[in-house]
């Protein structure tokens, strides 16, 4: 639907993509920090299993964060 000269479908798309990407990328990097910090704490406490789990969380979150960054650069290159 177009109101005046504004494509409201496009506008809605901007809103939800921005919400998803903006909050998502912030949350992912926070999980990297949480995972890394807690992994260190667990290792020092001698809880190797938990340390590994947190390290895996940090690694996974970082991989997804890095993928987001690559997608962003791709979007810049291909626009």
């Amino acid at each position: 639907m177009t109101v005046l000269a504004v494509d409201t479908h496009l506008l809605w798309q901007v809103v939800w993509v921005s919400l998803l990407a903006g909050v998502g990328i912030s949350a992912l990097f926070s999980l990297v920090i949480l995972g890394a910090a807690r992994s260190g704490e667990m290792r020092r406490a001698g809880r190797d299993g938990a340390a590994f789990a947190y390290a895996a969380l940090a690694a996974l979150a970082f991989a997804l964060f890095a993928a987001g960054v690559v997608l962003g650069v791709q979007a810049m290159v291909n626009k």
Partner: protein
Amino acid sequence: MLWIVVATALAFDFTNGFHDTANAVATAISTRALSPRLAVSMAAVLNFAGAFISLAVAATIATGIVDADLITPAIVFAGLVGAIAWNLATWYFGLPSSSSHALIGGVVGSAFVAEGAKAVYGSGLVDKVIVPALVAPVLAFVVGGLGILVVYRIVGRQRPGPVVRGFRYGQVISASLLALSHGTNDAQKTMGIIFLALVANGNVAPDADVPTWVVVSAASAIALGTYVGGWRIIRTMGSRIIKMDPAQGFVAQSVGATVIMAASHVGFPLSTTHVISGAIMGTGAAKRVSAVRWGVAGNIVAAWVLTLPASAAVGGLTYAVVALLGSDDVGPIVVSAALLAALGLALGRRLVAGRTLTAEG
């Protein structure tokens, strides 16, 4: 006239660089993620690189907003002067505002004075300037606010040391993305203007590739402007809107970068300045509404509202002066000389202000 337009376009590119440095680096400087000089150096290099990444020439500045068939080099020249004047004025008052909107405003004003109302498309203005200007800060405010709430929820109970360090590292990445994105967007505008001038003058064919010297000069001008740094605006965005912690700085930058890229990806480009400013306010307000200095925020919003009419007024006035003096060469030369004098004065004052900058602003 051609070379005057080229030189003025590069001058605009320079002001665009130093005016928008703050978008990429202000929060990183404020939270001490990067030293001021390292931050602007990094931003300058990435702006330069960004200019080469995407060469889909933005010969589209003001396309759909003014009648392209009526545009002459004199109109473009006057529009550029309007944009430069607004960039310098807002820099002087330390107010972040959109360089793109200033350029559009300048061209609209000069086209209106030159050709009358028929040269300006009202619906294009609504679609490409007014609606994005309303959407960008509100959207970034909401996403920034939600983003920081999620972040605090995730890391809120952790020891501050690793969290602060982690977000500072994150800010280096997000600042780099923003600087690169700025180079891909804003240097293109100048390339587009110079390319149009060359086409209009018969130097290159409309379907030719952009000459290498155009790409290099536009990239160099925006990088140099970025390196010089608009310290007054950096201070406003970094520490006068909110007093931010590294988590807020990271979220503001990351949300800014993702919103800009997401919007650009779906074909609805938003102003970087509006997005970053909105995100900074959102991360502050989500923590505590009174954390935002609403007086400063109000001044910034007032500058946004004034961008289009003010740059249009200067663009229109400049065109009138140029037309009066003779639009071949004399008018543009006289106006350019006055502009150069103003730019020299502005740079002199910037050097003084730059030396007093600290990370606390």
